[in-house]
């Protein structure tokens, strides 16, 4: 039996304070994920990520957010024909839409939006609050995904 293939995409720029939450989440998951799980960090979603999305069953987008309640928000997300594919980046919904059009498959998807405080400063460090949010989000995610049931 093939396990479900799951992709975890952490979005953000670690050189911009709490914008690095997505990347921090990915590095916190560590190297040794269970079979079927793959985690990657990126500055922002890009069109070619549709290729990766077309090859998995489930995807979780992890991003910093300034407009979700602390500590984090977990929502399913679907293909969104109104999603932004402007300029150099896409929203998760837009990327799912693109994946569907180009490759005729759309993985099941969620957005894990972790509450950020400061994202405009050039600083390679999370704020203390964001660090706490990150920890709670990780706990939640690990339980949800059954990655580290003993955490």
């Amino acid at each position: 039996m093939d396990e479900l293939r799951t992709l975890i995409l952490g979005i953000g720029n670690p050189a911009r304070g709490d914008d690095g939450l997505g990347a921090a989440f990915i590095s916190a998951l560590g190297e040794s994920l269970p079979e079927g799980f793959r985690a990657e960090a990126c500055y922002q979603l890009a069109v070619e990520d549709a290729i990766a999305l077309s090859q998995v069953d489930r995807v979780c987008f992890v991003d910093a957010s300034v407009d979700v309640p602390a500590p984090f928000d977990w929502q399913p997300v679907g293909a969104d024909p109104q999603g932004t594919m402007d300029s150099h980046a896409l929203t998760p919904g837009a990327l799912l839409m693109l994946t569907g059009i180009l490759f005729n498959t759309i993985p099941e998807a969620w957005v894990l939006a972790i509450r950020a405080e400061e994202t405009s400063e050039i600083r390679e460090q999370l704020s203390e609050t964001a660090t706490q949010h990150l920890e709670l989000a990780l706990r939640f995610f690990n339980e949800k995904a059954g990655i580290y049931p003993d955490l």
Partner: protein
Amino acid sequence: MTDRAAPTDPDIPVNQSRSESRRIEIDPITRVEGHGKVSIHLNSAGEVDEARLHIVEFRGFERFIEGRLLWEVPVIVQRLCGICPVSHHLAAAKAMDQIVGVDQLTPTAEKMRRLMHYGQVLQSHVLHFFHLSSPDLLFGFDAPAEQRNIFAVIQAYPELARRAVLLRKFGQDIIEVTAGKKIHGTGAIPGGINRHLTLEERDRLLGQIDELTQWCRDALKVAENYCEQHLDMLKSFASFESNFLSLVREDGALDLYHGVLSAQDALGHPIFAEADLTRFNHYLHEEVKDWSYMKFPFIQSLGPESGWYRVGPLARINNCKGMTTSEADLALKRFRAVLGKHCGHSLAYHWARMIEVLHCIEVIARLLEDSDLLTGERVIKGVRREEGIGMIEAPRGTLIHHYKVDEHDQVQFCNLIVSTTHNNTAMNRAITMVAKQHLNGQPNLDDALLNHVEVAVRAYDPCLSCATHALGQMPLQIELLDAQGQRLQMLSR
């Protein structure tokens, strides 16, 4: 992405009769491009006086880099931009080459870097054309926003879009095998490069070349057809004369990695051509304006009023004598047959960009056949210098990195002039023209104006070397302000 007027916001008075001099502001710059805003200044008669693109550029870089060690710089600088990190990586490495006393890299090092760079330009251009401009171009930018939606394009041209995505992937793969990673690679080091290409990597890339080259030809065709069919619009939409600046190979051919810094006027007459890039600040000066954090570079001999210029694909296409690859050279001749030698149309950037796409894949194919990538000396050192200036033709135009490094190898001074900065005045000019055409006598904000301004700005593909993008920080707004700075009207999406 629905457009809506926002008069319901209690903080925003809607009152157009209040002032004689008004300012309309548009904010078409989304999150990855930093924070920007367009204001359109009206005179008392309601005519457009001037338009300004306001860019809030992050200025923390010098602090980031000061005191760091010279060989760390190419690795650290790329972390400030998620859009074109490779350009910064290579420009910094070129500057550091000079500091370690290397004027001519080994063939292996130069070719590996070229491969990295052309791979990057390819993926950047492809993305820009297909996923940014094509909705405007294929459906017309007077169409409602929903119809200009990228998904409408993709559904209409699914094969084109799928190919674009795979071409992007190809460019990223090249970056990965030359720099070690897709982002935050380490490939270029002072005086050279840290790896060869393996046979397996080479063959994997080479195996795709024929098919991808055909796709690039097809993509160029889309741009050519569009421009030929919309000549009137090209000529009337944000078309103006200007000087052009770019690196050009010593023999006049287009070169994205290295060359002579060349400026030509609107008629193609040379203003200067300097092979010694360390002397660039004898030719270019920067002006500061009180309303923008971005500097306004100008050609010193012409002064700030008329010394402004454009950079990027159109500048390179205009400035060069020819292309070093056969198909791109034919494409250049077709371009000139239709648009002339010294084209000033903003929308011609799209055509120029696609000529470069075909050129990139041709260059990549040639490089991949070159055994210097597989073996050969990677790094050399020379006599130490204190100052280094690295210049490269980034996807959006000339990128300049300038450093001074002390005898202990620590950076003491750093200044960057990024492509978007060079195009600062030109973008303001383009927006002003669009606004004048659209708004005269009718100082009202509407979607069409927003669209037109976006199209004009996007032709220059501005990138503000910043990748902050937290969800919820993506305002897109149009504002109307009076002389006192009071907002009269706002449109946002």
